């Protein structure tokens, strides 16, 4: 039986995975969000108000949080739809930091000390049920028409447009969809810790999520999952002091990006000339896939997803 400590860490990794999947959905159309944590936090705050402040039932907080984030994300994506790449990153960053500012300064949300108490209703099982459903969603999505449209927009939006795909709409949809997953994660997060604070929304948190996705592999949702688990579990396993641990963490990210600029998992078949990290990373993934509660079917789907 795993200890309470590990149960907690695995629960947190599961929550972050859901958020990372959402970020992958945004990235799947070639967009770059440096404010993903803000949408996650927005969901957390909204749900915290529903349960903590208003005393309404937990399931309702999901509905409210996701609905709110859907509206805000759609509006935001619509307003910033002409911003690309770097400018979009800066735009999402500005959105996140502005939201942090709001949370700091509105007393109703608890200011700097955060919104609390929020009832502790997130359980390990709940997180993994939602994560499982999310993964199932992404597996199906990958092969759906919309999933293919996403990839098409990422690869070349001019070609996509010439094929009759509404590029702007697809981008907005992908941003909104990704943010909705962030909202789900935010609800679970707030009800897991019993508190949500302004700093949960800031750029550093968003950057952490981006690192998870980029480290694991930008091209598939498995990369997002893989990166999140490796980078949340690794610091726990490493027996160093906290600063050593994160110094190594930083170095690891640099090394990974240098040798595998698209992250550890890519669509390329194994054995392709991909450098030394692939040869270490792929077996590691196999082991991890066997351990993860995702199971054999997921592993099979993964093999399918990795085919060129």
């Amino acid at each position, binding site marked *: 039986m795993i200890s309470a400590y590990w149960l907690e860490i695995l629960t947190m990794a599961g929550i972050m995975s859901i958020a990372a999947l959402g970020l992958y959905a945004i*990235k799947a159309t070639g967009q*770059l969000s440096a404010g993903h944590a803000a949408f996650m936090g927005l969901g957390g705050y909204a749900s915290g108000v529903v349960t903590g402040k208003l005393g309404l039932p937990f399931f309702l907080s999901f509905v409210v949080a996701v609905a709110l984030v859907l509206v805000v994300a759609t509006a935001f994506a619509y*307003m*910033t739809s*002409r*911003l*690309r*790449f*770097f*400018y979009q*990153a*800066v*735009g999402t*960053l*500005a*959105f996140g*930091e*502005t939201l*942090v*500012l709001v949370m*700091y*300064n509105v007393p109703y949300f608890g200011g700097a000390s955060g919104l609390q108490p929020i009832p502790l209703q997130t359980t390990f099982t709940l997180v993994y049920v939602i994560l499982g459903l999310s993964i199932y969603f992404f597996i199906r999505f990958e092969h759906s028409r919309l999933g293919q449209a996403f990839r098409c927009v990422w690869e070349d939006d001019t070609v996509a447009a010439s094929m009759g795909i509404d590029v702007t709409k697809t981008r907005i949809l992908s941003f909104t969809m990704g943010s909705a997953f962030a909202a789900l994660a935010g609800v679970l997060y707030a009800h897991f810790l019993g508190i949500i604070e302004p700093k949960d929304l800031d*750029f*550093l948190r968003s*950057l952490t999520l*981006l*690192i998870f996705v*980029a*480290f694991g592999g*930008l091209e598939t949702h498995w990369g997002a999952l893989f990166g999140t688990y490796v980078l949340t579990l690794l610091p726990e396993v490493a027996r160093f*002091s906290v*600063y*050593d*641990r*994160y*110094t190594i*963490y*930083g*170095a*690891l*990210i*640099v090394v*990974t*990006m*240098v040798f595998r*600029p*698209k992250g550890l998992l890519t669509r390329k078949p194994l054995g392709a000339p991909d450098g030394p990290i692939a040869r270490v990373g792929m077996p590691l993934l196999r082991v991890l896939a066997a351990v993860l509660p995702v199971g054999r079917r997921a592993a099979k789907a993964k093999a399918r997803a990795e085919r060129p």
Partner: protein
Amino acid sequence: MLIFAQQVINGLMAGSAYSLLGLGFTLIFGILNVINIAHPEVFMVGAFLGWMLVTYANANLLVAIVGATIGASIVGVLIERIAIRPVRSALVLSPFISTAGVSIFLQQGAARVFSPEPQPYPPSMATVFHDVGGLQFSTMQVISLAVGAALMIGLKLFVDRTWLGRAIRATAMDRETASLMGVNVNTVVALTLVIASALAAVAGVLVSVAYNSTWAFMGITYGLKGMAVMVVGGVGSLEGAMAAGLILGVAEALTVGYISSSYRDGIAFIILTFILLLRPSGLFGQRERQR
């Protein structure tokens, strides 16, 4: 009126640090088309180098600044060689993430080496306040503003009027053609990193002395503001970064003076949001700069 004047003065002084960081971001983005997330950590490293020179070697401010500049330049060039050059041609996101890794590495490394708490300067560096007609300002503030202004004017002249400055601009516009003119692009990239890092290091030393605090995580807030300054000024525009930094400094000071200090760190992003929605190319940017 006196309060207003006082806040404007305070703002200009703080703003010159934002300008120096924003200039670094814009120079690096201009030549590499990459946003260097680790650039603010060069600012932090510069601050610590200055702090070490003052604390352990009894150096004066000038020596501290020169030493910090040299050390930080080396760090800046190394960052480009290690974390940017190998991933530059990959996806847009890759250099973003690899420099973020460098940033984490340097922050945590500094926290490991110097403790995660802010480090004070020895009393010899204490700031002296002057009072001129009711306006208060410290020696350090005056030095900051003067040094900042001198560096900005110097940079502008260098880039506009010298052979190497032209080579930097040519490389930023078209690497390949610049190399056909006999420009060693690698040297120009290194030179740009040295300039950006030197500006950051000077700002780092001045800020840490002015606020008497040298901190492993000091790069975070300043870095975000520096990025905001680059975009608000117009990516690639030196005048833009200079103006936007000073405007931001004054806006923050006025916010502190007239609204509340708790809004101070958010002003940059409110300005940034408006600029992105209304004029994404920035105050001084050209229209086609949207990439």
